[in-house]
């Protein structure tokens, strides 16, 4: 009846090994020869200038076709990744004909599993969407739509979760609260979270990576101490934020 906190069996979340990832269009090379391992059961936050290729990288991991993209992806445990991933894309992609609750349980329906309505309700309520449970997407605000997509992703209950700016349309207060809810729900899973909010990255990430085109591909930022979600009031948080901003400043907008 509650939002699942961590996968049923912790430790089952595989590491993900990406090698030789590249994004090229004709002469333009966004990145190439990128190798990256996402630690199993950990949250990795990815930042980088708009248009550099963060979404494309998520697609690569999810096994989705995307123009210009190449590279190989495998799970650390050797088993296939397909079926173990939940993905929250940058746009909400809600089904316009389905009520919020049905949108949340889409995955179960598509897999032929019995939809667990009480679980879906619990997730929606925890995301502040309780009163909107029977509304169709057209009656939702932008932030509500984004939360609906988040609810759908959490409902999936997969060991690997890819999220593309999951809180960008939320006000500061709601965002702060949902970061906590999400961090708790995803603890112990392998998470790759793309975000534009440096503080968010430092609050939620076991690792924080910056994708930049100019100074080589990926740069890792040292994260502050403390349990996730981290307290922003800690002394080393501000320092880490400063380092991160500096690292981001090196890149500049792409495209």
């Amino acid at each position, binding site marked *: 009846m509650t939002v699942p906190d961590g996968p049923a069996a912790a430790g089952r979340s595989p590491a993900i090994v990406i090698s030789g990832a590249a994004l090229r269009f004709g002469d333009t090379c966004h990145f190439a020869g990128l190798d990256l391992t996402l630690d199993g059961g950990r949250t990795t936050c990815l930042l980088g200038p708009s248009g550099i290729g963060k979404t494309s990288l998520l697609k690569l991991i999810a096994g989705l076709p995307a123009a210009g993209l190449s590279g190989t992806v495998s799970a650390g445990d050797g088993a296939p990744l397909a079926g173990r991933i939940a*993905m929250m894309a940058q746009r909400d*992609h809600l089904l316009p004909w389905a009520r919020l609750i049905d949108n949340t349980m889409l995955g179960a329906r*598509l897999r032929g599993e019995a939809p667990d309505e009480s679980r879906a309700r619990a997730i929606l309520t925890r995301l502040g969407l309780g009163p909107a449970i029977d509304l169709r997407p057209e009656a939702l605000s932008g932030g509500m739509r984004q939360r609906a997509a988040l609810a759908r992703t959490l409902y999936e209950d997969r060991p690997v979760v890819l999220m593309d700016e999951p809180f960008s349309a939320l006000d500061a207060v709601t965002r702060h609260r949902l970061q906590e809810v999400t961090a708790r729900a995803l603890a112990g899973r392998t998470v790759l979270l793309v975000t534009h909010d440096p503080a968010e990255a430092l609050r939620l990430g076991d690792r924080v990576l910056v994708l930049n085109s100019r100074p080589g591909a990926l740069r890792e930022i040292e994260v502050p101490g403390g349990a996730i979600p981290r307290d922003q009031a800690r002394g080393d948080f501000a320092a880490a934020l400063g380092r991160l901003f500096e690292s981001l400043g090196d890149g500049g907008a792409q495209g």
Partner: protein
Amino acid sequence: MGRLAAALGAGIAILLLWQGAVTLFAPPPFILPGPAAVARRLWLDRALLLDHGLITLAEIGLGLVIGTLIGIGAAIAISASRPLRRILLPLVIASQAVPVFAIAPLLVLWLGYGMASKIAMAAIVIFFPVTIALADGIARLEPGLVDLARVMTGGGSPRGRRWRLLRHLYGPAALPALGSGLRIAAAVAPIGAVIGEWVGSAGGLGWLMLQANARAKIDLMFAALALLAVIALLLYRLVDGALRRATPWANSTDILKESEPT
């Protein structure tokens, strides 16, 4: 009732146009009778027209249901599997190039002179727009949703997977497109039934028209035709209304119309 007023207005508009054509071009009455003569005939032969109208109505109803089902089935088959598509699509397209008289004897041989052969012929006319519109709608699913479904169903058992995708994703998404196909089908269903009656019949508006035409009872032919047109209009309205209610999320306001002084 604005809807009633609109329907009345449309009826009056058609009558005026018709009378206008008769007055202006003055075609001989045995080629195009005026509305008054046809109205008189509609009244005088109302029992006859009703009898045959009901036969045709039954054929239209059954033809529409069966044609729509076949259309949906064909669209699903075409969308679901590439080999099936390779075989089915050409067959479906070729079926539209077949004139009645070429396959009428065949239909009668297989289905007899009863309702079946007429409904088969009507279904051939009706299913096609449904198939193409629905298949197009399915193929036009937003790429973002395609990706979503792919991640959600990846690695799972493929048993029934396509069916579930269709039921919960592609199907509803294609409903508005299916709507266009159904609207077209609703409008051609009456002529579909009439064509079915050419296969061989002992009643129905198409039969009555053939009969009236052969006896140069042009006003009766046009009375039957008027009835057929009314059936087509009502059917279209019905289907249109049902579709609007079935796809509330797809009814946008139209700026071109909104800007009208209403």
